[in-house]
């Protein structure tokens, strides 16, 4: 697979490939957060969950040689973190945003603690599917080698979107998220439903973490996530609590995140650190443009505390 000289076409191609690659953790985390927020709770701890997922997946893959087992364990670990958040927030008068901040710091600390021995050794990475078999150009081939976790996230976006509209569980989640009183009157236990959605959201975020350490960038170190979990939480607001919106928003942010490395590949090296935080700038700008102090955002679950 030789690299052909295709000039500046490298940049859009790299942005496209990068959009898919960089967006995968955003997609999985924002779908998980969307699930949680639809039930009326916000879990800011997903940043920590992402780190725990990345660390546990890398560790398991290194020790057992099976990256898929790593993904499974990452999902389990994420679920445990989500479950912890769900249980603590079910106690009366406990603030879900504050617990999220605490779990973010706790999760990162745990990931650093257990991840120490895995900084350095190379773990087996996740395989990807080659969609570029028809082309002879190396860059196109590598741009079209798409990871299975992205496809999983793509399918999940449609499944969750359909689930919210057309399944009994989806409707229960929406009722609990929009009005606790209505949910109680219908005989559902809001705390139970929210704990379940937070645990499920945590599992998705844990898988998002496994993508970071096992595919792209494909190593484990302590600065691996640096805020991607928080960006994903904002994406949910940007996507107006719509799972398909999460998909498009993740792709947009993935593209913004890929711009830095793409420009570097053609020799544009100024402002490396600033280009790396392009997604954070974009997030901030979008929040400023789309928020309003006068009214609530359309589509926001009624019980969600960040919007009150």
């Amino acid at each position, binding site marked *: 697979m030789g690299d052909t000289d295709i000039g500046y076409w490298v940049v859009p191609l790299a942005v496209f490939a990068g959009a898919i690659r960089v967006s995968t953790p955003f997609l999985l985390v924002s779908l998980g957060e969307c699930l949680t927020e639809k039930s009326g709770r916000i879990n800011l701890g997903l940043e920590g969950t992402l780190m725990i997922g990345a660390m546990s997946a890398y560790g398991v893959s290194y020790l057992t040689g099976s990256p898929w087992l790593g993904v499974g364990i990452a999902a389990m670990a994420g679920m445990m973190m989500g479950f912890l958040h769900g249980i603590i927030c079910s106690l009366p008068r406990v603030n879900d*945003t504050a617990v999220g901040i605490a779990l973010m710091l706790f999760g990162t600390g*745990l990931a650093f603690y257990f991840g120490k021995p895995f900084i350095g050794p190379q773990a087996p990475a996740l395989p990807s599917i080659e969609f570029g078999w028809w082309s002879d150009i190396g860059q196109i081939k590598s741009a079209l080698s798409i990871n299975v976790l992205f496809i999983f996230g793509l399918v999940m976006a449609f499944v969750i979107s359909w689930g919210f509209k057309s399944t009994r569980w989806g409707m229960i989640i929406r009722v609990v998220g929009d009005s606790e009183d209505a949910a109680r009157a219908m005989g559902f236990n809001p705390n139970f439903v929210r704990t379940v959605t937070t645990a499920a959201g945590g599992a998705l975020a844990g898988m998002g973490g496994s993508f970071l350490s096992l595919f792209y960038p494909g190593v484990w170190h302590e600065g691996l996530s640096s805020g991607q979990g928080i960006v994903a939480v*904002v994406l949910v607001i940007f996507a107006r609590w719509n799972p398909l919106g999460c998909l498009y928003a993740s792709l947009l942010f993935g593209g913004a995140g890929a711009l830095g490395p793409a420009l570097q590949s053609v020799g544009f090296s100024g402002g490396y650190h600033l280009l790396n935080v392009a997604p954070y700038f974009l997030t901030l700008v979008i929040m400023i443009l789309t928020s309003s102090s006068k009214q609530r955002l359309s589509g926001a679950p009624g019980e969600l505390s960040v919007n009150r």
Partner: protein
Amino acid sequence: MDYFTDKLSAALVPILALLVSAVLFGIFVAFAGVSPFETYALIYKGAFGTWFSWQNSLQRAAPLLLTALCTALPAQMGLVIIGGEGALVIGGLASVSTALVLQSFLPPVAVQITMLLAGTIAGAIWIGGIGALRHKRGVNEIISSLLLVYIAIAILNTLVEGIMRDPGQPQKSSTHPVADTVMFGNLPGMDVHWGLLIGVMFCIATFVLMYLTPFGFSARIVGGNPRAARMLGLPVGKLVIIICAVGGGAAGLAGAIEVAAVHGRANSALIAGYGFTGILVAFMARQNPLAIIPVALLFGGIEASGGLVQRRLDLPNAAVEVLKGIIFVVVLAFETFSGRLGFLKRRKP
């Protein structure tokens, strides 16, 4: 009497939470094959066991006093600001920049004062802007403040690797150093810099501001009930922005002190996590500026003991992060007991 039991119960809940966290962390290290009792003995020794460790703890408590205010003051108005780390970094950068420009022709005392002012103003603008966005555009302050942490760190890295870089420091990208004559000295009789005293004074001053002045009273009304505040005709927006700016100024000042008293230049050593530990200090102190003083000392001690625990017990240095995380989670979970400790309530006759 009721006032007293209220205060007692308010202090008792975090203390109980601390004890429960200690048990949980003990179990955690026991799984790592380390004796919990030995761990706590070492934490005590490294934090408050000797005069040397006391000084180390005080030195680390100094920035925590100020970064905790960055969360605690806006919290009095119902805002959750978790971006103290960003304000600290920006404050450090602003102070080092002013020092590098001014130190060649101003006397050292004047440079020191402008450094502190520059750090404070930079931090005040950084967090005050978050308050303004919150008020004017409804931008969620939790998320914007955290995003700005990453942006601040990127600005720091860009500057110290770019135009502000000192070529004489090849191993670690840093700015040029502040002149030795400008560097802060130590408090009389101890090996702790003046920043500690500044931090304590700042905490006391903001306590007076929030609890003993009409300004602070109206700010706390906004926190308690924004609708009532509007009905009273209080200038909600102005109060939000000023209080956020004061909190940000405190964190920026912490950055300026770290530069002027510890590092002598700006580099990635500024990103030491004081901003994040400050959030925990603020929550544990229940957002009360006076309560921040003992809590900051406690966590300064925990930070100071990290090295000793790591060397003696062969635990990863993140063990301290785990301990802080456990304390944070348990403290918040224990909110559920606040005001409900039945044995403290006066029985009805």
